[in-house]
Protein backbone atom coordinates (compact mmCIF):
# COMPACT_ATOMS: atom_id res chain seq x y z
CA UNK A 1 0.00 0.00 0.00
CA UNK A 2 2.79 2.45 0.97
CA UNK A 3 4.51 1.97 -2.41
CA UNK A 4 1.34 3.20 -4.10
CA UNK A 5 1.30 6.57 -2.33
CA UNK A 6 4.09 8.20 -4.37
CA UNK A 7 2.63 7.25 -7.81
CA UNK A 8 -0.78 8.43 -6.59
CA UNK A 9 0.49 11.83 -5.44
CA UNK A 10 2.75 12.42 -8.47
CA UNK A 11 0.07 11.45 -11.02
CA UNK A 12 -2.58 13.61 -9.34
CA UNK A 13 -0.23 16.62 -9.30
CA UNK A 14 0.68 16.06 -12.97
CA UNK A 15 -3.00 15.65 -13.93
CA UNK A 16 -4.12 18.80 -12.13
CA UNK A 17 -1.28 21.13 -13.10
CA UNK A 18 -1.07 20.00 -16.73
CA UNK A 19 -4.68 21.10 -17.26
CA UNK A 20 -4.25 24.13 -14.98
CA UNK A 21 -1.29 25.46 -16.99
CA UNK A 22 -2.22 24.26 -20.49
CA UNK A 23 -5.77 25.69 -20.48
CA UNK A 24 -4.93 29.47 -20.34
CA UNK A 25 -2.63 29.36 -23.44
CA UNK A 26 -5.24 27.16 -25.14
CA UNK A 27 -7.89 29.83 -24.42
CA UNK A 28 -5.60 32.51 -25.94
CA UNK A 29 -4.89 30.32 -28.98
CA UNK A 30 -8.61 29.67 -29.56
CA UNK A 31 -9.40 33.39 -29.10
CA UNK A 32 -6.80 34.34 -31.74
CA UNK A 33 -8.31 31.86 -34.18
CA UNK A 34 -11.81 33.11 -33.30
CA UNK A 35 -12.98 29.61 -32.37
CA UNK A 36 -15.77 30.81 -30.10
CA UNK A 37 -19.51 30.23 -29.73
CA UNK A 38 -22.20 32.38 -28.14
CA UNK A 39 -23.07 31.53 -24.54
CA UNK A 40 -26.83 31.22 -24.99
CA UNK A 41 -27.63 31.62 -21.29
CA UNK A 42 -26.07 35.07 -20.85
CA UNK A 43 -28.01 38.32 -21.22
CA UNK A 44 -25.12 40.10 -22.91
CA UNK A 45 -23.48 38.91 -26.10
CA UNK A 46 -20.83 36.66 -24.53
CA UNK A 47 -18.59 34.54 -26.71
CA UNK A 48 -16.81 31.53 -25.17
CA UNK A 49 -13.98 29.64 -26.85
CA UNK A 50 -14.08 25.92 -27.50
CA UNK A 51 -12.96 23.13 -27.47
CA UNK A 52 -11.11 22.52 -24.21
CA UNK A 53 -10.56 18.88 -25.14
CA UNK A 54 -6.83 19.34 -25.95
CA UNK A 55 -5.97 20.41 -22.39
CA UNK A 56 -8.11 17.61 -20.90
CA UNK A 57 -6.44 14.89 -23.02
CA UNK A 58 -3.01 16.40 -22.26
CA UNK A 59 -3.70 16.06 -18.52
CA UNK A 60 -4.95 12.49 -18.90
CA UNK A 61 -2.08 11.30 -21.10
CA UNK A 62 0.61 13.00 -18.97
CA UNK A 63 -0.68 11.60 -15.67
CA UNK A 64 -1.34 8.11 -17.01
CA UNK A 65 2.17 8.05 -18.57
CA UNK A 66 3.56 8.82 -15.10
CA UNK A 67 1.52 5.93 -13.70
CA UNK A 68 2.72 3.67 -16.53
CA UNK A 69 6.26 4.45 -15.41
CA UNK A 70 5.39 2.92 -12.03
CA UNK A 71 3.09 0.07 -13.09
CA UNK A 72 3.57 -1.36 -16.58
CA UNK A 73 0.04 -2.73 -16.91
CA UNK A 74 -2.23 -2.90 -19.95
CA UNK A 75 -5.10 -1.27 -18.06
CA UNK A 76 -3.28 2.07 -18.20
CA UNK A 77 -2.60 1.68 -21.93
CA UNK A 78 -6.29 0.88 -22.49
CA UNK A 79 -7.32 4.04 -20.63
CA UNK A 80 -4.86 6.21 -22.58
CA UNK A 81 -5.65 4.82 -26.05
CA UNK A 82 -9.43 4.71 -25.56
CA UNK A 83 -9.49 8.27 -24.17
CA UNK A 84 -7.30 9.49 -27.03
CA UNK A 85 -9.50 7.91 -29.73
CA UNK A 86 -12.58 9.43 -28.04
CA UNK A 87 -10.80 12.80 -28.05
CA UNK A 88 -10.11 12.50 -31.80
CA UNK A 89 -13.77 11.55 -32.45
CA UNK A 90 -14.92 14.54 -30.42
CA UNK A 91 -12.43 16.88 -32.08
CA UNK A 92 -13.67 15.88 -35.54
CA UNK A 93 -17.21 16.67 -34.37
CA UNK A 94 -16.04 19.99 -32.88
CA UNK A 95 -14.50 21.09 -36.18
CA UNK A 96 -17.02 19.61 -38.60
CA UNK A 97 -20.75 19.14 -38.08
CA UNK A 98 -21.36 15.39 -38.18
CA UNK A 99 -24.62 13.38 -38.18
CA UNK A 100 -26.33 12.10 -35.04
CA UNK A 101 -25.00 8.56 -35.53
CA UNK A 102 -21.35 9.62 -36.00
CA UNK A 103 -20.32 9.79 -32.33
CA UNK A 104 -21.96 6.57 -31.09
CA UNK A 105 -20.59 4.58 -34.05
CA UNK A 106 -17.12 6.15 -33.95
CA UNK A 107 -16.90 5.61 -30.19
CA UNK A 108 -17.32 1.86 -30.76
CA UNK A 109 -13.85 2.03 -32.35
CA UNK A 110 -12.60 3.76 -29.20
CA UNK A 111 -13.65 0.74 -27.12
CA UNK A 112 -11.61 -1.77 -29.16
CA UNK A 113 -8.28 -1.25 -27.29
CA UNK A 114 -9.97 -2.60 -24.14
CA UNK A 115 -10.75 -5.82 -26.01
CA UNK A 116 -7.43 -6.16 -27.89
CA UNK A 117 -5.37 -5.51 -24.76
CA UNK A 118 -7.43 -8.11 -22.87
CA UNK A 119 -8.13 -5.73 -20.00
CA UNK A 120 -11.67 -6.87 -19.26
CA UNK A 121 -13.11 -9.67 -17.17
CA UNK A 122 -16.31 -11.29 -18.44
CA UNK A 123 -17.64 -11.77 -14.89
CA UNK A 124 -20.16 -9.04 -14.12
CA UNK A 125 -20.32 -8.38 -10.37
CA UNK A 126 -23.57 -7.28 -8.69
CA UNK A 127 -24.04 -6.08 -5.12
CA UNK A 128 -25.52 -8.65 -2.70
CA UNK A 129 -26.02 -11.35 -5.34
CA UNK A 130 -22.48 -12.12 -6.53
CA UNK A 131 -21.22 -12.46 -10.09
CA UNK A 132 -22.56 -13.78 -13.34
CA UNK A 133 -20.35 -15.04 -16.17
CA UNK A 134 -21.49 -13.68 -19.54
CA UNK A 135 -18.55 -13.99 -21.99
CA UNK A 136 -20.39 -13.12 -25.24
CA UNK A 137 -22.69 -10.55 -23.68
CA UNK A 138 -19.81 -8.87 -21.89
CA UNK A 139 -18.03 -8.20 -25.19
CA UNK A 140 -21.20 -6.40 -26.30
CA UNK A 141 -21.20 -4.51 -23.01
CA UNK A 142 -17.61 -3.31 -23.59
CA UNK A 143 -18.49 -2.09 -27.09
CA UNK A 144 -21.70 -0.47 -25.78
CA UNK A 145 -20.22 1.12 -22.64
CA UNK A 146 -17.82 3.67 -24.17
CA UNK A 147 -20.37 5.25 -26.58
CA UNK A 148 -22.88 5.37 -23.70
CA UNK A 149 -20.59 7.02 -21.13
CA UNK A 150 -19.06 9.35 -23.73
CA UNK A 151 -22.39 10.56 -25.08
CA UNK A 152 -23.97 10.67 -21.62
CA UNK A 153 -21.37 13.14 -20.35
CA UNK A 154 -21.64 15.05 -23.63
CA UNK A 155 -25.43 15.31 -23.24
CA UNK A 156 -25.14 16.85 -19.77
CA UNK A 157 -22.71 19.53 -21.02
CA UNK A 158 -25.50 22.10 -21.36
CA UNK A 159 -24.66 24.77 -18.77
CA UNK A 160 -21.48 26.47 -17.55
CA UNK A 161 -19.38 24.09 -15.46
CA UNK A 162 -21.89 21.24 -15.35
CA UNK A 163 -19.98 18.56 -17.33
CA UNK A 164 -16.67 19.09 -15.51
CA UNK A 165 -18.33 19.60 -12.09
CA UNK A 166 -20.46 16.49 -12.55
CA UNK A 167 -17.36 14.53 -13.60
CA UNK A 168 -15.48 15.60 -10.45
CA UNK A 169 -18.25 14.15 -8.25
CA UNK A 170 -18.80 10.96 -10.30
CA UNK A 171 -15.10 10.13 -10.76
CA UNK A 172 -14.13 10.71 -7.12
CA UNK A 173 -17.12 8.56 -6.07
CA UNK A 174 -15.79 5.82 -8.38
CA UNK A 175 -12.27 6.17 -6.94
CA UNK A 176 -13.63 5.91 -3.37
CA UNK A 177 -15.60 2.81 -4.42
CA UNK A 178 -12.41 1.24 -5.83
CA UNK A 179 -10.61 1.95 -2.54
CA UNK A 180 -13.52 0.35 -0.61
CA UNK A 181 -13.23 -2.72 -2.84
CA UNK A 182 -9.47 -2.76 -2.05
CA UNK A 183 -8.62 -2.47 -5.74
CA UNK A 184 -5.92 0.06 -4.82
CA UNK A 185 -4.00 0.04 -8.09
CA UNK A 186 -7.11 0.83 -10.15
CA UNK A 187 -8.25 3.38 -7.58
CA UNK A 188 -4.97 5.27 -8.08
CA UNK A 189 -5.19 4.91 -11.86
CA UNK A 190 -8.70 6.43 -11.70
CA UNK A 191 -7.72 9.45 -9.57
CA UNK A 192 -6.29 11.59 -12.44
CA UNK A 193 -9.78 11.77 -14.00
CA UNK A 194 -11.07 13.64 -10.95
CA UNK A 195 -8.06 15.95 -10.82
CA UNK A 196 -8.19 16.71 -14.56
CA UNK A 197 -11.90 17.57 -14.18
CA UNK A 198 -11.15 19.68 -11.09
CA UNK A 199 -8.50 21.74 -12.89
CA UNK A 200 -10.72 22.19 -15.95
CA UNK A 201 -13.65 23.24 -13.73
CA UNK A 202 -11.64 26.30 -12.71
CA UNK A 203 -12.02 27.65 -16.27
CA UNK A 204 -15.36 26.01 -17.09
CA UNK A 205 -17.36 27.10 -14.03
CA UNK A 206 -19.82 29.96 -14.38
CA UNK A 207 -18.98 32.32 -16.10
CA UNK A 208 -17.13 29.95 -18.44
CA UNK A 209 -13.88 31.02 -20.06
CA UNK A 210 -13.81 27.85 -22.18
CA UNK A 211 -16.23 25.06 -23.11
CA UNK A 212 -14.96 21.46 -23.21
CA UNK A 213 -16.68 20.82 -26.55
CA UNK A 214 -17.37 17.31 -27.80
CA UNK A 215 -13.65 16.51 -27.63
CA UNK A 216 -13.53 17.33 -23.90
CA UNK A 217 -16.85 15.73 -22.91
CA UNK A 218 -16.27 12.53 -24.91
CA UNK A 219 -12.73 12.20 -23.52
CA UNK A 220 -13.97 12.48 -19.92
CA UNK A 221 -16.85 10.07 -20.57
CA UNK A 222 -14.70 7.53 -22.41
CA UNK A 223 -12.07 7.52 -19.66
CA UNK A 224 -14.81 7.04 -17.05
CA UNK A 225 -16.27 4.11 -19.01
CA UNK A 226 -12.85 2.50 -19.47
CA UNK A 227 -12.11 2.73 -15.73
CA UNK A 228 -15.49 1.09 -15.05
CA UNK A 229 -14.60 -1.86 -17.32
CA UNK A 230 -10.92 -2.41 -16.48
CA UNK A 231 -11.62 -1.80 -12.77
CA UNK A 232 -14.57 -4.27 -12.82
CA UNK A 233 -16.90 -1.68 -11.26
CA UNK A 234 -19.44 -1.38 -14.08
CA UNK A 235 -22.53 -1.33 -11.84
CA UNK A 236 -21.03 1.17 -9.37
CA UNK A 237 -19.99 3.41 -12.27
CA UNK A 238 -23.52 3.30 -13.69
CA UNK A 239 -24.98 4.27 -10.29
CA UNK A 240 -22.60 7.25 -9.92
CA UNK A 241 -23.58 8.38 -13.41
CA UNK A 242 -27.35 8.07 -12.84
CA UNK A 243 -28.32 11.79 -13.18
CA UNK A 244 -26.60 11.93 -16.58
CA UNK A 245 -28.15 8.58 -17.55
CA UNK A 246 -31.58 9.94 -16.55
CA UNK A 247 -30.93 12.94 -18.80
CA UNK A 248 -30.14 10.69 -21.78
CA UNK A 249 -33.05 8.38 -20.93
CA UNK A 250 -35.54 11.27 -20.72
CA UNK A 251 -34.17 12.73 -23.95
CA UNK A 252 -34.36 9.46 -25.89
CA UNK A 253 -37.74 8.41 -24.50
CA UNK A 254 -39.24 11.77 -25.48
CA UNK A 255 -37.56 12.05 -28.91
CA UNK A 256 -37.83 8.29 -29.68
CA UNK A 257 -34.61 8.37 -31.75
CA UNK A 258 -30.93 9.34 -31.63
CA UNK A 259 -30.72 12.96 -32.74
CA UNK A 260 -28.16 15.74 -32.41
CA UNK A 261 -29.18 18.68 -30.18
CA UNK A 262 -28.63 21.09 -33.07
CA UNK A 263 -31.24 19.21 -35.15
CA UNK A 264 -34.05 19.74 -32.63
CA UNK A 265 -36.44 22.54 -33.46
CA UNK A 266 -38.39 22.75 -30.18
CA UNK A 267 -36.76 24.47 -27.21
CA UNK A 268 -37.03 22.67 -23.84
CA UNK A 269 -35.91 25.80 -21.98
CA UNK A 270 -36.36 29.54 -22.52
CA UNK A 271 -35.37 32.71 -20.66
CA UNK A 272 -37.41 34.99 -18.45
CA UNK A 273 -37.02 38.78 -18.64
CA UNK A 274 -34.37 38.73 -15.91
CA UNK A 275 -32.65 35.93 -17.89
CA UNK A 276 -33.45 33.09 -15.56
CA UNK A 277 -34.04 29.68 -17.14
CA UNK A 278 -37.64 28.55 -17.49
CA UNK A 279 -39.18 25.27 -18.77
CA UNK A 280 -41.29 25.63 -21.91
CA UNK A 281 -44.55 23.87 -22.78
CA UNK A 282 -43.27 23.05 -26.28
CA UNK A 283 -44.51 19.54 -27.17
CA UNK A 284 -41.84 19.11 -29.87
CA UNK A 285 -38.99 19.81 -27.44
CA UNK A 286 -37.24 16.95 -25.64
CA UNK A 287 -37.79 16.26 -21.94
CA UNK A 288 -34.42 16.78 -20.25
CA UNK A 289 -33.02 16.82 -16.73
CA UNK A 290 -32.76 20.63 -16.81
CA UNK A 291 -36.37 20.91 -17.98
CA UNK A 292 -37.55 18.74 -15.07
CA UNK A 293 -35.47 20.74 -12.58
CA UNK A 294 -37.10 23.90 -13.94
CA UNK A 295 -40.62 22.42 -13.74
CA UNK A 296 -40.91 23.92 -10.24
CA UNK A 297 -40.27 27.44 -11.55
CA UNK A 298 -37.56 29.61 -13.12
CA UNK A 299 -34.01 29.35 -11.75
CA UNK A 300 -30.70 31.00 -12.57
CA UNK A 301 -28.08 29.04 -14.54
CA UNK A 302 -26.01 28.75 -11.37
CA UNK A 303 -28.95 27.36 -9.36
CA UNK A 304 -29.69 24.73 -12.02
CA UNK A 305 -26.01 23.74 -12.03
CA UNK A 306 -26.05 23.32 -8.26
CA UNK A 307 -29.27 21.28 -8.47
CA UNK A 308 -27.50 18.89 -10.88
CA UNK A 309 -24.50 18.72 -8.52
CA UNK A 310 -26.84 17.83 -5.61
CA UNK A 311 -28.24 14.96 -7.69
CA UNK A 312 -24.68 13.90 -8.57
CA UNK A 313 -23.69 13.88 -4.89
CA UNK A 314 -26.79 11.80 -4.07
CA UNK A 315 -25.82 9.29 -6.80
CA UNK A 316 -22.22 9.32 -5.61
CA UNK A 317 -23.40 8.35 -2.11
CA UNK A 318 -25.55 5.55 -3.60
CA UNK A 319 -22.49 4.38 -5.58
CA UNK A 320 -20.39 4.25 -2.41
CA UNK A 321 -23.17 2.34 -0.59
CA UNK A 322 -23.24 -0.03 -3.59
CA UNK A 323 -19.48 -0.58 -3.19
CA UNK A 324 -19.99 -1.59 0.45
CA UNK A 325 -22.82 -3.89 -0.66
CA UNK A 326 -20.45 -5.53 -3.19
CA UNK A 327 -18.55 -6.97 -0.24
CA UNK A 328 -21.71 -8.66 1.06
CA UNK A 329 -23.15 -11.69 -0.72
CA UNK A 330 -26.54 -13.05 0.34
Amino acid at each position, binding site marked *: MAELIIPAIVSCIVAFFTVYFVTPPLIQFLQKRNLAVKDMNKKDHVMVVRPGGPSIIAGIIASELVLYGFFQINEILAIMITSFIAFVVGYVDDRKVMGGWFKPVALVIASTPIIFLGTYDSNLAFPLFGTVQIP*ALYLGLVIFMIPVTGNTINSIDVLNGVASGFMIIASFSLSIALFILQNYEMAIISLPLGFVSLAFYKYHKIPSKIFPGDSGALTLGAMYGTIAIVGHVEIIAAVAL*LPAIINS*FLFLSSMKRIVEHRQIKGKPVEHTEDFKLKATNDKTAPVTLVRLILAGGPLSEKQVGYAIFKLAIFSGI*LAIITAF*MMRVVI
Partner: protein
Amino acid sequence: MKIGLFGFLFVMWILILAGGGILVAILGPFSISGYGDLDLLLTSVLKAIIAIILVVVWILVLSKLKNWIFKKEIKY
Protein backbone atom coordinates in the same frame (compact mmCIF):
# COMPACT_ATOMS: atom_id res chain seq x y z
CA MET B 1 -35.94 21.32 -6.41
CA LYS B 2 -38.67 18.85 -5.68
CA ILE B 3 -38.09 15.42 -4.19
CA GLY B 4 -39.25 13.76 -7.46
CA LEU B 5 -35.84 13.59 -9.12
CA PHE B 6 -34.18 12.18 -6.00
CA GLY B 7 -37.02 9.64 -5.78
CA PHE B 8 -36.54 8.68 -9.42
CA LEU B 9 -32.79 8.25 -8.83
CA PHE B 10 -33.47 6.07 -5.81
CA VAL B 11 -35.99 3.93 -7.72
CA MET B 12 -33.45 3.50 -10.55
CA TRP B 13 -30.88 2.35 -8.00
CA ILE B 14 -33.32 -0.19 -6.51
CA LEU B 15 -34.15 -1.42 -10.03
CA ILE B 16 -30.43 -1.89 -10.75
CA LEU B 17 -29.99 -3.91 -7.53
CA ALA B 18 -33.12 -5.99 -8.21
CA GLY B 19 -32.13 -6.44 -11.87
CA GLY B 20 -28.73 -7.69 -10.73
CA GLY B 21 -30.40 -10.22 -8.45
CA ILE B 22 -32.64 -11.51 -11.25
CA LEU B 23 -29.68 -11.65 -13.65
CA VAL B 24 -27.55 -13.64 -11.22
CA ALA B 25 -30.44 -15.90 -10.21
CA ILE B 26 -31.61 -16.64 -13.77
CA LEU B 27 -28.46 -16.36 -15.85
CA GLY B 28 -25.92 -17.55 -13.30
CA PRO B 29 -26.84 -21.24 -13.10
CA PHE B 30 -28.06 -21.38 -16.72
CA SER B 31 -26.09 -23.65 -19.06
CA ILE B 32 -26.69 -25.81 -22.14
CA SER B 33 -25.03 -29.19 -22.63
CA GLY B 34 -25.07 -31.93 -25.26
CA TYR B 35 -23.77 -29.90 -28.21
CA GLY B 36 -20.04 -30.49 -27.64
CA ASP B 37 -17.88 -27.49 -28.51
CA LEU B 38 -20.95 -25.38 -29.18
CA ASP B 39 -22.17 -25.62 -25.57
CA LEU B 40 -20.37 -22.46 -24.43
CA LEU B 41 -21.37 -20.46 -27.47
CA LEU B 42 -25.05 -21.49 -27.28
CA THR B 43 -25.13 -20.78 -23.55
CA SER B 44 -23.64 -17.33 -24.14
CA VAL B 45 -26.06 -16.50 -26.96
CA LEU B 46 -29.09 -17.57 -24.90
CA LYS B 47 -27.81 -15.65 -21.88
CA ALA B 48 -27.40 -12.59 -24.10
CA ILE B 49 -30.98 -12.91 -25.42
CA ILE B 50 -32.43 -13.27 -21.90
CA ALA B 51 -30.35 -10.31 -20.68
CA ILE B 52 -31.51 -8.13 -23.57
CA ILE B 53 -35.16 -9.05 -22.81
CA LEU B 54 -34.56 -8.13 -19.16
CA VAL B 55 -33.05 -4.78 -20.20
CA VAL B 56 -36.06 -4.03 -22.43
CA VAL B 57 -38.43 -4.88 -19.54
CA TRP B 58 -36.29 -2.66 -17.24
CA ILE B 59 -36.57 0.27 -19.67
CA LEU B 60 -40.36 -0.20 -20.00
CA VAL B 61 -40.77 -0.27 -16.20
CA LEU B 62 -38.60 2.82 -15.91
CA SER B 63 -40.58 4.61 -18.59
CA LYS B 64 -43.87 3.90 -16.74
CA LEU B 65 -42.29 5.03 -13.48
CA LYS B 66 -41.05 8.22 -15.11
CA ASN B 67 -44.55 9.04 -16.34
CA TRP B 68 -46.00 8.26 -12.90
CA ILE B 69 -43.43 10.24 -10.87
CA PHE B 70 -43.35 13.22 -13.22
CA LYS B 71 -47.02 13.17 -14.31
CA LYS B 72 -47.40 16.82 -13.28
CA GLU B 73 -44.11 17.97 -14.79
CA ILE B 74 -44.39 16.07 -18.10
CA LYS B 75 -47.65 17.53 -19.34
CA TYR B 76 -46.15 18.86 -22.56
